[in-house]
Structures are given as C-alpha cells and as structure tokens.
C-alpha cells in the first residue's frame, strides 16, 4: 500500500549516502524551482528534455528505490495523461494540428517538471526539506510545518494500524463506524503529542525556530548550480522560438 511505500521512502531518504544527499536542500529546491519557471518560457518541445537531463543524471547516480519513484510519479502522470487525453479531441476540433501541438507541449513540459520535482523530493532527506521550509517560512507557519512533519510518521503508522485492524482474513472489512472512531482517536492522541512537540519547538527558538540542518554550501552545491544554470541557458536559448 502507498503508506508502506512512503515509509520505506522516508527510511531510504534519511539513511542513504549518495551524491544527491550531499547537496544543500536550499540549493536543490531553489534550482528545481528555477527549472520549473524556465520551462514555462520554453516553447519548443524537443528542447524541454534538456531541463530534465541534470535530474535524470542525479537520479542515476543516486539510485533511489524504484518503488519510491513510482509512488510519487505515477499518480500525477496518470492525472496529466487523462487530462490531456480529454482535452485533445476538443483542441483538434477547435485548432486543428496546432491544438494537438499545444497538448504535446503541455505533456512534455509537465513530465519534464515532474521529473525534476520527483528526483529532488526523493533525493533530499525529508527532515532537511521540512526544516528548511520552516527556516524560510514566517512565524506561525514555520511552527505549523514542524508540527506537521513531526506528527506525520506517527499518524501514518496509526492509519496503517487502523486499516490492518479493519482487515479480516486478508480482506478489508468495511466498517465506517470503526474507521471513524479510530480516526477520531488518532486525531485526539496526535494532538496531545503535538502539544508536547510544540513546547519543544518553543524551547528551541520560539516563533523563529533555528533549523537543525546546516545551511553550509560546498563545492558540490556550486557544481550543481552551474549544471542546472547551464541547462536552463541552453533551453532558453534554443527553446524560445
């Protein structure tokens, strides 16, 4: 089930020691955002994959679990494919082959950006991502991010427990009453532990929590920035026609 696969992804992302994990999360997410924004300006379909190339190489070097990549990539890919397939007949009737070209452009651009995002998400330790988000967020939102991140794994384990408890002889037994009651219990207990977590956050830094992740930048960050910037420049130069 998806909950188990996300657990194994979390485990891998926290324990792996790959070239991608040595990159600063601010540099990684910042470069992904720049890639996504540059993709909007590229209009030639054949040039777009140049933007995804650095991320594909990073994924090959890091070798994340295939299941983790599939869990994250398949649902949005399916939604994108369904959306564009639904759009295509209408676009063809309205604009002819130019309409289909637009659909193809959205498709390639969507998959390019999804590749960049999924590779970044899978190869960045999850706690680093959330601690960085908290460090950059305004007061209140930063604490909400940290409480969310801290509560998430316990809540997901509790959910799995509920679904296992509702399974009888290997088949899920539909009992909304039991599911609702179990969900209410998970919520109430999670809030209690979140209150203790919030107290710990206050002790660490109050309204502006100091991130536990080091924000030092190394040679690998410079190299990655140059690689991504180069791919963006190439894409913009060749792709704005």
């Amino acid at each position: 089930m998806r909950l188990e696969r996300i657990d194994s992804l979390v485990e891998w992302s926290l324990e792996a020691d790959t070239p991608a994990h040595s990159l600063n999360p601010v540099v990684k997410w910042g470069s992904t955002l720049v890639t996504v924004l540059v993709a909007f300006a590229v209009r030639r379909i054949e040039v777009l994959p140049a933007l995804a190339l650095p991320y594909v190489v990073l994924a090959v070097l890091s070798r994340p679990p295939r299941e983790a990549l599939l869990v994250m990539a398949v649902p949005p890919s399916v939604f994108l494919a369904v959306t564009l397939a639904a759009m295509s007949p209408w676009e063809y009737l309205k604009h002819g082959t130019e309409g289909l070209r637009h659909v193809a452009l959205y498709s390639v651009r969507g998959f390019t950006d999804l590749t960049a995002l999924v590779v970044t998400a899978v190869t960045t330790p999850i706690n680093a991502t959330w601690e960085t988000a908290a460090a950059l967020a305004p007061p209140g939102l930063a604490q909400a991010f940290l409480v969310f991140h801290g509560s998430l794994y316990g809540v997901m384990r509790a959910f799995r427990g509920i679904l296992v408890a509702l399974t009888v002889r290997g088949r899920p037994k539909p009992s909304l009453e039991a599911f609702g009651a179990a969900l209410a219990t998970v919520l109430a207990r999670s809030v209690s532990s979140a209150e203790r977590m919030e107290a710990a956050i206050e002790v660490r830094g109050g309204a502006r929590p100091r991130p536990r992740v080091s924000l030092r930048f190394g040679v690998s960050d410079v190299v990655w920035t140059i690689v991504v910037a180069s791919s963006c420049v190439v894409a913009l130069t060749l792709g704005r026609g």
Partner: protein
Amino acid sequence: MAHVHLPDGVIPLKWCLLGFATYSVPLALGLKRLVERPSTIPLVGTLAAVSFAAMQVPVVCAHLMLTPLTGIVLGPRLSAVSVFVVDTACALMGHGGVTVVGINSILNWSEAAGGWLLYRLLTGAGLKPGRAALVATGTVLSCTAFVPPFVMAVALNTSPYPFLFTLTPFWILTAWLEALVTSKTVGALVRMNVEWVSPGS
C-alpha cells in the same frame, strides 16, 4: 477533495501567480489568528498530518482529503493555514505542482470554509453533529467537484466538458464516502467530549 493534480508547466504561470495572490489573503488572516492563539498550532499541524495521511489511502480512482473535517474543527481562518501546509506537502511529493499550490489551496480552503459554514448552520438548526457533518461534507464536496474542470478550462483555454465527464463523477463518488467518514469521525469526537466539534465552539 477536488484537487488539481497537474504537475508544473501545464497551468500557465499567470494563473498560478493569481492563485497565490488570491490565497495570500485567507492565509494571512489565518497566520494572524495562529500567532494570536499559539495554542492552536498543534491542532493545525496535526490536522494537516491526518489529512495528508488520509490522502495516501486510495478510494476508487481518487482519495480522501478531510478538508471539511479540517474546516469543522479549525474554522475558516485557521483551516487556511492547515490546507496550505497539506498542499505544500503534496507539491513537495510531486502530487500537484509547486506552482499550482495557490490554486489548489483556494479550492481546498473553499471546501474547508464551506464545510464549516454549513456545519454551523445545520447544528444551529438542531441537527445532530454527526448528521450535520454528513450533509455539510457531502454537499460542499459535491458542489466543489464541479469547480476544477472550469478552473482548468479557463487556465488552459479549452472546454470544461471533457474534464466534467471524466473527473467530476469520481470526485462526487468520493465526496459522499468522505462525508460518511467525516460524519462518523465527528460523531466519535462528540462522544469523546472533545470540544473542537461542539456546536458552540
């Protein structure tokens, strides 16, 4: 639980920026309330975590999101923050693009706020909390299931009908299942004497 699951690069940037600009208002009001009442931070963060975890359980071709439950428990202002946290988490996992977070947050917050409003009206009219949650959740989510096709149609300059016929039926089906789950959860919380869902809270 109507959610634009499109990755980045499909919805034009101007619509994404408009989404962020529009959502900045409820988000700012929510953050102001959060800073005024820091004791609600655990509830906001936990509801976001529960909502995110619920999304990982597939239902037919869609998933639960528990946005009306978030609205019923937190109210319209704080739910803006919780919904933003969930949508940001989804975007960071590739579930809907980073640039689409603003649009998704507007859609999901409207479910939370609408759920809260209808729940308060129904409990004020004397309906039991569980039944009020059922009607509020089902009604709000069924109505909002029609919105994303029009949002995508306007943004992509195409017709909404293909999306209405392919996506909306699944969303409506999941809406009533979520309504049942929310109803049972609210009923259980009331029996547990949790004050978050009391009609007067």
